[in-house]
């Protein structure tokens, strides 16, 4: 397997009032071209931080992200991001939201007519052509997320980064979008990193699932190869023993090996003064 994207020993520390907080500790991951990777872990474990570092939105304190043998440390359209909350510009139509990215990325490379065609092509890919003149406020949450995906795809990224893209959607819409994503993936064969906390989603979509340990100082816990034939069908897979085996493996990791400690009573280190404890327990 040749490495296309190398996330090489990245660590990150955030400055806080009580000293630096180490969110990631030497996260290391090598991804091949066209691979679909899911990053899964409990909330707060830093999986979004990994994605933001790859996107160039955060800068790693240690380590580097190497894409096609070149180090990347600033954001760019070669690593397009689909954000959790669609993040469409509310004052632009669906078409214009994709167009603003296309115009910027293909400045001087495509003619105006070609750009319009390219926007239309990408909207068609996510089945949103019918709403291209609508404003984001006029379409549903699932449709907004489709447009967000179209905008990211339209940048022709080397790596597509998706930060819990379906997390805010209802189960049915989510299933539709997962199917749409698999369909697009079979056509374009992008390299994808998907952040998720949905085990089914991870098993259904991925070639490999990367399970992260709990933070602080989160690292790669286990990596699971998903050897299910494509195209995958969620109904057929429901009774597939391999599928269920993979599911069980991820669930075991999340709920046994990395089980979250109970949230209450509040965890307090001995360094904290007694008044804080009283406040925390509401006394």
């Amino acid at each position, binding site marked *: 397997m040749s490495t296309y994207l190398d996330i090489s020993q990245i660590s990150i520390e955030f400055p806080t009032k009580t000293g630096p907080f180490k969110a990631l500790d030497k996260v290391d991951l090598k991804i091949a071209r066209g691979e679909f990777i899911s990053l899964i872990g409990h909330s707060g474990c830093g999986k979004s931080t990994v994605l933001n570092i790859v*996107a*160039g*939105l955060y800068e790693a304190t240690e380590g580097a992200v190497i894409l096609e043998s070149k180090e990347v440390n600033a*954001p*760019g*359209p070669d*690593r*397009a*991001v689909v*954000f959790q*909350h669609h*993040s469409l*510009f*509310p*004052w632009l139509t669906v078409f214009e939201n994709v167009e*603003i*990215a296309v115009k*910027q*990325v293909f400045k001087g490379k495509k003619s105006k007519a070609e750009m319009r065609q390219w926007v239309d092509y990408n909207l068609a890919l996510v089945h949103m052509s019918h709403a291209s003149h609508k*404003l984001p*406020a006029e379409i549903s949450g699932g449709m907004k997320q489709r447009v967000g995906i179209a*905008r990211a795809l339209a*940048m022709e990224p080397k790596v597509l980064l998706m930060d819990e893209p379906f997390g805010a959607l209802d189960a049915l819409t989510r299933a539709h979008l997962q199917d749409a994503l698999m369909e697009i993936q079979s056509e374009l064969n992008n390299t994808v990193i998907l952040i998720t906390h949905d085990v089914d989603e991870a098993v259904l979509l991925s070639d490999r699932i990367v399970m992260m340990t709990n933070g602080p100082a989160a690292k790669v816990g286990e990596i699971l190869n998903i050897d299910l034939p494509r195209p995958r069908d969620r109904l057929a897979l429901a009774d597939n023993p391999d599928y269920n085996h993979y599911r069980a493996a991820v669930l075991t990791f999340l709920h046994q090996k990395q089980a979250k400690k109970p949230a209450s009573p509040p965890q307090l280190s001995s360094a904290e003064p007694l008044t804080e404890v009283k406040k925390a327990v509401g006394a």
Partner: protein
Amino acid sequence: MFKQNTLHYLSVAGFAWLVPLIKLASWENPREQAQEIVRLIGLPVIAILVFLAIWSTAASRIDTSLGTFPGPTAVVSAAQGLYQEHVVEREKAVAFYERQNKRNEEKLARNPDAEIKIRDYTGKPTYFDQIITSLITVFTGFLIASIIAVPIGITCGLSPLLNTAITPIIQILKPVSPLAWLPLVTMVVSAVYVSDDPLLSKSFINSAITVTLCCMWPTLINTAVGVANIDKDLINVGRVIQLGWFTRVTKIAIPAALPMIFTGLRISLGIGWMVLIAAEMLAQNPGLGKFVWDEFQNGSSESLARIMVAVITIGFVGFILDSFMHTLHKIIAHDEA
């Protein structure tokens, strides 16, 4: 479809109370419309009637040195009087120009090379002229304020450091009364604005600048807050597609902050209108403020009623300006204001 659009535009323009009337005219669910009419039109009308009754009884019990405090009827007749004066003054103006034209034509008939003079009519401004003057003044001041406040607000919103630096200055200058600014403005304008044939009168400039000084702050603060609180994801989108700094400001920061900017502008215009009346009183700019002051100095038995007319006019104009800004906001900005 046509009706739907009309109804939508009426709501946008702040005439929501007309909607049930139009629906009733097309006999759409008449019972519900009747209830809506009672709610949207009936209740305010009752409130106004009660207010007029209280005003009327209270006024008749207040005796001032200029006679009884004017009740609603006295104010209506004063308003009619002001309208009559306006008509008479306009007739005089027309007559003046006719005489002047006739004289000039006769002059030219006698001698085609004669130098003719065209003079403007210099009668005193009528009540309606004064309203127009006030509107021009307030919009001049408001426009200058917006031109200054929006760019500074955007810069502050983009730079937390600059924002921290100038926030105390803004907070200190914001509550200053127009009456405190005006003497300073007057002295500076008379020192700086020296011209033999001034295009704009000093009193106009004084009033407009005072309006500017008092009404720029809400726009500035709201713009800064609006720009500073743009959704981080939207900014990140801009970074991912590598928009340049200028494009990021024009394509992301300004449109995203537009609802807040408009809220600021709306508050600013309201404050500007309030401040203007005080400024005109002291600066003797021929607008509504000067009208009130002159009537007060005049001290005739009509004066109080005429001042009440001005009070109601000021209220109405303020209300219309606010609705105008609100409508503009709904049309231009993308949020549901």
